[in-house]
Structure formats: C-alpha cells, structure tokens
C-alpha cells in the first residue's frame, strides 16, 4: 500500500475572492522592467561620463585653439612688425642705393665733352618720391650727335641706364633729356644667373 502525504486539510473558512498566482512566465515582465531600469541607469551613467569627458575635451580644444590663435596673432604682429622693418630697411636700402653721389656722374659728363663741345646747361633733379630716378637735362653746343653718343656712353659706363631719352637739335645746341636709373651690376649678374 502506498499513501502519499499531500496537502494539509485546511478547515479555515474560505475567502471567496482568492485569486490564483500569476503564471511564472509573467515574472519576465517585472524582471524586464528592472533590467530596463538598470540598463537605463548604466547607459545614463556612461553617457553622463562621456558628456563630461566631451565637455572637458571641448574646453581643452577651445583653450588650445585660443592659445594657438593668440600665438598666430602674435606671429602676425611680429610678421607685421618685421614687414614694417623690412619695408623701412628696403626703403632705407633704396634710398641709400639711390642717393649715391652725383659728383662722379657730373665729372664723367664734363670729361666727356670734346674740344669743340661745351655744356650750356646741365640739370640733374632727383625725384622726392623716387630718389633712385634722376631726371637729367643737358643742353650743349655740339656740331654733331657724336658728342651726345659719347656722353651717353660714359653715363652708361657708370651703370646708369637712360629711360625715355629725348634729344632736340637746333641753332647749334643739342638738348638732351632722359631719366637715369642706376643699375647694380652684381644684382644684374645674379638675376641673369637665376634665369
């Protein structure tokens, strides 16, 4: 004989509205709810940490950009100062180059005169804005243009180049006008070598 011990016989007055427990499968509902809360908390924490890191990174980049901008501005200022100094130096160099003494030019023009030629009037004007250019006006008594060619050749021998030359011959006088610009022979050689 086998008698199985089953549930206890309960004599308590039964309550009519006793509901059976929900199926075990439905435990997934609160479990998923708690899991979703946990995941949300974890993700929120991760996002918050990443947000903080991004803000720090942004601030760092911003500070770096500001620093670089400041450095760039300083460099620009320095460059502007250097360019200003270079311009001043260039102007000074140009002025120095252009303000070479006119005495050798005068001497060479005077010595180029032949026995039957004489200088009536010689004018050398240096422009204020562009002192390297010398406006020359020469009026001389000469019976031919050979004298003028000789004089121009002497001037060229001093490394002066004549621009816009005009010459007028009348009543035994030759009037010659040109703009003289001094050419640095070393610079010319360098430019030719580069070409």
């Amino acid at each position, binding site marked *: 004989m086998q008698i199985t011990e089953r549930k206890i016989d309960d004599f*308590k007055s039964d309550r009519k509205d006793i509901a059976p427990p929900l199926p075990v499968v439905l435990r997934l509902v609160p479990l998923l709810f708690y899991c979703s809360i946990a995941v949300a908390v974890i993700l929120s924490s991760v996002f918050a940490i990443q947000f903080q890191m991004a803000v720090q990174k942004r601030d760092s980049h911003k500070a770096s950009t500001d620093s670089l901008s400041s450095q760039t501005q300083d460099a620009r200022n320095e460059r502007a100062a250097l360019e200003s100094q270079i311009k001043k130096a260039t102007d000074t160099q140009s002025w120095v180059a252009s303000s070479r003494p006119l005495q050798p030019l005068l001497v060479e023009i005077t010595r180029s005169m032949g026995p039957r030629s004489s200088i009536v009037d010689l004018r050398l004007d240096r422009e204020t804005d562009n002192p390297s250019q010398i406006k020359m006006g020469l009026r001389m008594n000469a019976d031919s243009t050979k004298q003028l060619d000789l004089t121009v050749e002497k001037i060229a021998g001093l490394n002066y180049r004549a621009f816009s030359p005009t010459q007028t011959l009348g009543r035994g006088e030759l009037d010659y006008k040109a703009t003289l610009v001094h050419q640095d022979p070393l610079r010319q050689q360098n430019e030719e070598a580069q070409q």
Partner: protein
Amino acid sequence: MKSIDLKSILNFSAFRPEPDDPSASWKKRFPAEKTVFFGLGRGVLTWRGISRSGNPGDLEIVRAEPKEILSQSAEHIKSLTEQGWCAISLNTRYVISLETNLSRRTGSEEMLKTNARGVLGGRYERGKRYALTHNPETNSSILLTFDEDQTRKTEALFSEAGFRVGRVCCGAYLLLKHALAQTNTVKGSEQPVSTFYIVCCEGAVCALVQDQDRWLELRSRTDVYEEDFTPITDLLAPFHSRLSPDIGITLVCDEPMDGLEDRLAKVFPNRGITDLSQPALLATLMIQN
C-alpha cells in the same frame, strides 16, 4: 489596474499564492515572512514562532483559557510575526473515525468542502467540516470531523486578538497522515504493512491498528494528557490483547516525549517500537505542506 496590483507585480507577490490560499503550502505563501503556529487545546494554548527562513522557534505552552491568554499575551505573540499571520492546530473538539464504503469518485476529497453529503452519504451531518484519507487497498477511510461553529469561533477568537488566520488544521490528523505516508511506501499489496500507529499531539491521542494494510480499529481522544503519560497508556492498553503478536508500534508525536517509549514498552512488551517523532515535527510538516 490599480496601483496595488502594479506594486504586487513589481515586488513579485502577484506570482506567489495569497496568504490565505489553502491550496498553497505555507512556505510558498510566506517565503520570507515571520509567522506563528498555535496549538489550541482545552485549557491550553501553545505557540511557536516561525522565522523568515522557515525555521521553527521554541515552543511556549500556557495552561489557561486560550481567550484569556490571547487577551493578555496577544501583543507579545504578535511580535513573533510581521503581519500577524498564523496557523492553528485544533487539538480539541474533533472526531477522527474509521469509515467504510465512502465515495471515492475523482475529486471526492475536494468535494468534501462543497458537497460533503455527496461524498459521505448518510454519515453527513449538517454544520460539520470534514477531511478524508482513503485506504487505497481496502474500502476503509479515516474521517476527520470538525464542528463548523467551533471552527468559526476559533477563527473569530484569533481575529479579535489581532491575528490573521492563514490555516486551521488538526495536528493529530496531520501526524497520523505523516506516519501512514512514512510506513506505507510500496505501491500495491505485495508488501503489506502491519503496525499499530500511536499519535500524540498536545494532549490528543489517536491510535490506529493496521494489519496487512487493512485498517481494523481507530481510537481518537482529545485532551487526554498533560505532563503524565498514564492516561495515554490507560487509553492504549486495551489494544494489546487485540493486536496480532507480530505487529509493531509506530509512534509519532509532535515533539519527542521522553519516557513515553519506555512506558509503551511496558504496556506492549515484546513489540518493536519505531519512533518517528522529531523536534518541532508538527511545525515542520505545516511549513512544508
């Protein structure tokens, strides 16, 4: 859906049986809650706290009218619980009898609550509550009968004291079923069991003679003993002459009773005694089932 329903889902209580659902075991109803078990006898009330982990505490016994005890000590006893849930073992004013030819249709034991007349036939009495245990090999059955009014009064007594009654049962009947289940373990009639069951539960005594799987005689008395075992032996002594010589004794008590086995050995000489008693056995059975 009410907020309380939502709360019960989120704290998983909706997936557990309700506290007063008789179809569920005590352990499932109160998985992590302190409760208390009462034993109600005539002029005696015992109680034992059950911890959250389901371990029975120490037994306390007060011999006085239960109503007075509850009026004086209810607060102290309630402190053993969390929400006042309790189970009650009625150890008095019940009848356990041996019946034959009761209906064994499927679900008849469950039908006892709704239509006891259909199961018990002519043995049915109005105003009673019943429980049945059938002998699978014979047509005999053990019938437990409680007075319905008395049960309701007991529930009201504890409810008025501030307790919430989760179960009302009969300790002696429960121990008898436990002893039957422990000894009758082989299906079929090939290995018949013969023994004399003696059940003692907080003053109540029940004796059942089983010979070759047949239940021959049953005697049940409540409020038999207190400290002295003599009323027990006096009640059981007449069985000695009626028992077959080879029948042993199976003793089961709600608590181990020192000296009872020796006293029984004197009343039933030359019979082997198997003692199934364990500390807090009744409370353990009530927790597990």
